[in-house]
């Protein structure tokens, strides 16, 4: 068994990483067609890695706890946005503003995370669809707060943020005075390419935290719960609590991630900024070769690079090929959804195959025992 030929090794590498390979092929075809310079692409990719990695890393912990892709990460994003709205009303800018926004987002994220975790514990086996619907549900409550309560109940004074009618937040909140304040801290320019060192330091710290966390008692508990809930319970682990903690951590991290994401963008679309973020982060993670039950830090960075490379080149490649930029736009949306669909199908079929295999082995063992 050990003496595998090089070809079969390559084949199994390909089979286990179909999605990343598909994306490498798509990018390899699209890059020359799109006609972008290498320098431009490199600069864009570095910006996008800095912007998105933190958000995507927040997905890793629930996967570890066996709760699948956390479609409820949007809840954290909303908490982060509420923090940013309040901070910009108080006119606290730059790094202090970001830190304060993060501090404000924590209690909101924790509350939403606990609610989400409790509901997911009730809907066991349907965590993903429940998290996905939770998005819509909490989005309704977010709108209730931001559109009606802010200014009426929660004091908002600044006229650039509040709607002229006296309550509710404007469609866009400008974060101009906060724009790229983290990215520009200690930034290095390298042949026209800006490298946001401080952002990468923060992302690296989170990576270190996740690596360390896996080794702690709680991290080990989560992995045990992810492997087999009943066995974990028999071993004396409080399964429900562990699962809730994993969702809370993911939600809080997603809140921080959203603040980092928005400081790079420089403005906040109050009602739409969070609506697609979960989908894009999950698609990026899956493009990096992760699956519903297994994801590593490497998957995050490979995924964010490949996915955003496709995102940059697809519209212009579409324009060159089809003479219509909309084709490329739709193509990249289609690919994002198709990747998620594909990954979900792969996961479910694999789960069924292992289940039936285990059943067959059990039957065989019983037959042996009967003899």
């Amino acid at each position, binding site marked *: 068994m050990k003496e595998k030929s090089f070809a079969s090794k390559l084949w199994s590498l390909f089979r286990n990483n179909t999605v990343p390979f598909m994306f490498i092929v798509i990018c390899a075809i699209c890059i020359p067609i799109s006609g972008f310079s290498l320098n431009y692409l490199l600069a864009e990719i570095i910006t996008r890695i800095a912007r998105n990695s933190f958000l995507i890393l927040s997905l890793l912990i629930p996967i570890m706890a066996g709760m699948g892709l956390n479609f409820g990460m949007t809840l954290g994003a909303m908490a982060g946005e509420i923090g940013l709205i309040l901070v910009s009303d108080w006119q606290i800018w730059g790094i202090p503003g970001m830190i304060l926004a993060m501090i404000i987002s924590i209690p909101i994220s924790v509350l939403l995370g606990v609610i989400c975790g409790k509901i997911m514990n009730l809907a066991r086996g349907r965590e993903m669809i429940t998290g*996905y619907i939770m998005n819509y*549900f909490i989005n309704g409550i977010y*709108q209730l707060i931001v559109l009606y309560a802010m200014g009426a109940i929660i004091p908002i004074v600044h006229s650039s943020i509040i709607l002229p009618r006296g309550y509710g937040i404007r469609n866009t909140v400008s974060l101009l005075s906060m724009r790229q304040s983290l990215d520009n801290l200690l930034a290095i320019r390298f042949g026209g390419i800006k490298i946001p060192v401080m952002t990468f330091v923060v992302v690296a710290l989170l990576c270190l935290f996740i690596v360390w966390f896996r080794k702690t008692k709680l991290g080990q508990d989560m992995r045990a719960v992810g492997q087999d809930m009943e066995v974990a319970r028999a071993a004396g682990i409080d399964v429900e609590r562990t699962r809730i903690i994993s969702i809370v951590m993911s939600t809080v991290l997603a809140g921080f991630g959203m603040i980092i994401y928005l400081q790079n963008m420089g403005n906040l679309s109050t009602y739409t900024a969070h609506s697609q973020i979960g989908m894009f982060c999950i698609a990026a993670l899956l493009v990096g070769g992760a699956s519903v039950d297994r994801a590593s830090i490497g998957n995050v960075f490979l995924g964010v690079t490949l996915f955003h490379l496709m995102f940059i080149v697809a519209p212009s490649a579409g324009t060159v090929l089809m003479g*219509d930029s909309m084709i490329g736009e739709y193509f990249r949306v289609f690919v994002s959804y198709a990747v998620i669909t594909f990954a979900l199908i792969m996961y479910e079929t694999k789960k069924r195959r292992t289940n039936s295999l285990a059943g067959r082995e059990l039957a065989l063992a019983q037959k042996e025992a009967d003899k």
Partner: protein
Amino acid sequence: MSELTRSSGNPIVDKIRAFARSFGLPRLIIAGFLLLLFIMAPFVGANFFTQLSNTLNRFSWNAVLVLSMVPMIHSGCGLNFGLPLGIIAGLLGGTLAIEVGATGFASFWVAVLFATPFALILGSLYGFLLNKIKGGEMMIATYVGFSSVSLMCMMWLLLPYHSPNMVWGYAGKGLRTTISLEGYYNGALANFLQINIGHLSIPVGTLLFFALLAFGIWAFLHTKTGTAMTAVGSNPNFARAAGINIDKTRLLSVILSTWLGAVGILVYEQGFGFIQLYMAPFNMALPAVSAILIGGATVNKATITNVIIGTFLFQGIVTMTPTVMNSMIHMDMSEVIRVIASNGMIIYALTRKSEVSR
């Protein structure tokens, strides 16, 4: 809900409590809210009959879409979040009917005719896929719906449609985002036998069409195949022991749901008056799902009554809240209320323990 189960000694009160329990608390709240809206309507200056007609109209547009949930719930495939797939089959049928030049009342039936093969093909593929992934249907259905909608976005631009009523004027190709059905099947069913009394207008044709389909499904569920379908949904192991081919039964239910989705969108369009393409089918699954849940269905049990009650309550709230709320507190909170109520209902249903574990 302990107070609902306590006995009081009074048979009538007990009966009411038993009714409330079987009806479900969230449903009761929503029904009460709608009743309150209807009572409030005259006080805020909205005509009761106009409101009722609006609700009935919207009911008639959406009822078939909600009905399309029933077969899949019965066979244990869960809530059909993949409804956009059926809608796409319907959209293909509708656009093809216009392309071949069918007009007026007949174009509706031509559209249904054209939509059917697409629904059968897409439904079989979809059903085949869902059989491979038993247990994870709902999440995958959602994303199958999304991917197919975004794939069709490209197709609407690329497919060789030529009818000047549908393509972009300046380019001469690529379908428009919204296509008017004036002269085609706009009101094909609604105008048939329509009753107008003062402010009250009842789209009898559409309601009859829905009643026909609903009766068809009811009758089907009472045939041998239909009973087998229910058996597969409520207890797969029992069904297998009884010699029912589970995969085939599920496949049939998915095809049926997809076809009903295709017909449902055509019924919706004939009432609404426009075909909406591109990203429009994207968010059509959630309202239909929450409507049937509001009507009392669970993840693995649904009846025609659930469809009727649910659609009426859901569409009633959609039509009534804007008018009543706006004139009462001068704030348009209806959209937010609808989002919270409908998605809250889905979460409620997902957290209920299903009666059988797979």
